[in-house]
């Protein structure tokens, strides 16, 4: 079943095949003043997989995501994306490289409609730069129509046709999360980062979201890295899991392996550190 096909303007694939390393984090450390958020963490994300990042509150999961998408620049360590070492890039440059994300606390453009929100996700795909568009709207208009088609397919895929024109600030939480996923998908990302995509949802909404995540992964081959608290969701969705605690990596492997790991169990249940 093909809900939508990739548009002709998708970012080049660079010849990375499924199963090869898409993103590698090497010995990354991040500190805010004296507080160490991440200490010497290394892991990789393979093309085509769903990689979960788990850990107790304050383990540094969101910081890790912020490092990957360029909001934070680590003091130490390297990040390799598609075989190229990344120097300190700005978030908007990283978005243009093909990394899209959602946020833990939903960062949508609240005054704009669902449709417009998802359209902003196409900005990285637009050939004509914005100044050009401001000066001459003719060619930009034709381009807009093509992008609009793609966005409509995403809206169908996420089953949010009924809220297309509604300002997202008025939508219930679960739907807002879905719109945010739509905006990230609109960029046709190589790598999709999801920060707690199911936080605050009821069971039915969680099942819907899980289905969307699996479909995105299987139908478009999008590589996904996600942070999640609900262990049953992590077990169902992810191919491999990396576990963080106090900013350090304490586990890495398949969900089964990680669940049996004594260090991970201790971190979750809490033991005295002595």
């Amino acid at each position: 079943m093909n809900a939508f096909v990739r548009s002709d303007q998708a970012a080049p694939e660079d010849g990375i095949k499924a199963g090869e390393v898409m993103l590698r984090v090497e010995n990354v450390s991040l500190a805010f003043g004296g507080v160490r958020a991440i200490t010497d963490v290394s892991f990789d994300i393979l093309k085509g997989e769903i990689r979960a990042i788990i850990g107790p509150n304050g383990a540094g999961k969101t910081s890790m995501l912020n490092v990957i998408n360029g909001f934070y620049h680590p003091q130490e360590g390297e990040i390799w994306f598609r075989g190229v070492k990344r120097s300190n890039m700005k978030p908007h440059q990283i978005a243009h490289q093909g990394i899209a994300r959602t946020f833990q606390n939903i960062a949508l453009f609240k005054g704009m409609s669902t449709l417009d929100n998802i359209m902003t996700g196409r900005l990285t795909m637009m050939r004509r730069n914005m100044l050009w568009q401001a000066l001459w709207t003719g060619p930009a208009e034709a381009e807009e129509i093509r992008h609009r088609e793609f966005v409509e397919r995403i809206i169908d895929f996420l089953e949010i046709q009924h809220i297309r024109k509604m300002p997202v600030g008025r939508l219930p939480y679960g739907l807002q999360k879905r719109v945010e996923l739509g905006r990230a998908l609109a960029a046709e990302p190589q790598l999709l980062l999801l920060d707690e995509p199911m936080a605050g949802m009821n069971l039915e909404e969680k099942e819907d979201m899980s289905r969307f995540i699996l479909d995105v992964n299987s139908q478009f081959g999008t590589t996904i890295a996600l942070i999640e608290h609900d262990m049953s969701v992590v077990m169902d969705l992810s191919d491999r899991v990396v576990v963080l605690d106090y900013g350090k990596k304490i586990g890495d492997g398949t969900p089964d392996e990680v669940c049996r790991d004594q260090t991970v169990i201790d971190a979750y249940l809490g033991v005295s550190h002595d």
Partner: protein
Amino acid sequence: MFIVDPFFWEVVISGLLAGVMYSLVALGFVLIFKASGIFNFAQGVLALFAALTLVGFQTGQVPFAHLVNTIFGTNIHHWGDGLHTLIAIGFTLVVMIGLAWVIVRVVLKNLVNQEGIILFMATIGLAYVLEGLGDVMWGADVKPLDVGLPSGPSDTVIDMTGMFVEKLEISAAVVAIILVVALTIFSQYTKMGRALRAVADDHQAALSVGIALETIWWIVWSVAGLVALVAGIMWGAKSGVQFSLSLIALKALPVLMLGGFTSIPGAIIGGLIIGVGEKVFEIYFGPLLGGATENWFAYMLAMVFLLFRPQGLFGEKIIERV
């Protein structure tokens, strides 16, 4: 009946034209507010700074002359006869664009993802810095500004209707119309509009979809600088370039409350309503209240509006979820 009284219409027209001047300042506010969610307190000072710079170039003043003379004991003041008006306007525009770049680099860049109120405070600081800079660069004396706009009462209008209308104010109206049409096309009918609204709504999200925040800010502040320059020219030509010009920013506030902070047409209509209201009220009700109603009428009108329609006439409806 006062409807057929030509004097009433003269009052209305002079009110409309005065309103255009308010609108010009309010426009700068709306632009920046729409595009970055910042209420730019420095807009009035920006207009002052633009006018000072223009006069400086036009008359061939040496910037920072007073400072240099005090430190080095020299006596420099002018480097020549000055530039032709159009060239001076061009140079001033370059200065305003450069200033926008500095503002983004030095002030805004460090405040990404901060609350609106913090950005607002930053613009208050910016207003004082710019006022001081304008003083040190070009001196604090009142300077006449002549850009070759026609002035004096319009003979044609007097002949046709017997009404007394300033030519300068007619030019201001024409300039304002051109400016509004251009700005509306720029911000609403181009793809730029969506990126602008995105930036105004959420910095972090805008960055994550690949919008270059600093570039957008630079463009917006440059356009606001252009609008400030136009406002500065008009006010400067009318009443000379003086530091009280920065206070017209305060008159723009009631205009914005009427028109709504997010609407370009709103800024224009708001300005016109305030302009006309002020003049008519002063002429017909002023004597009953002891005069000088022009000083407070605009604010009172704005307050009444705040009570009944807080988003203004054309503003976006406020959505609140609890």
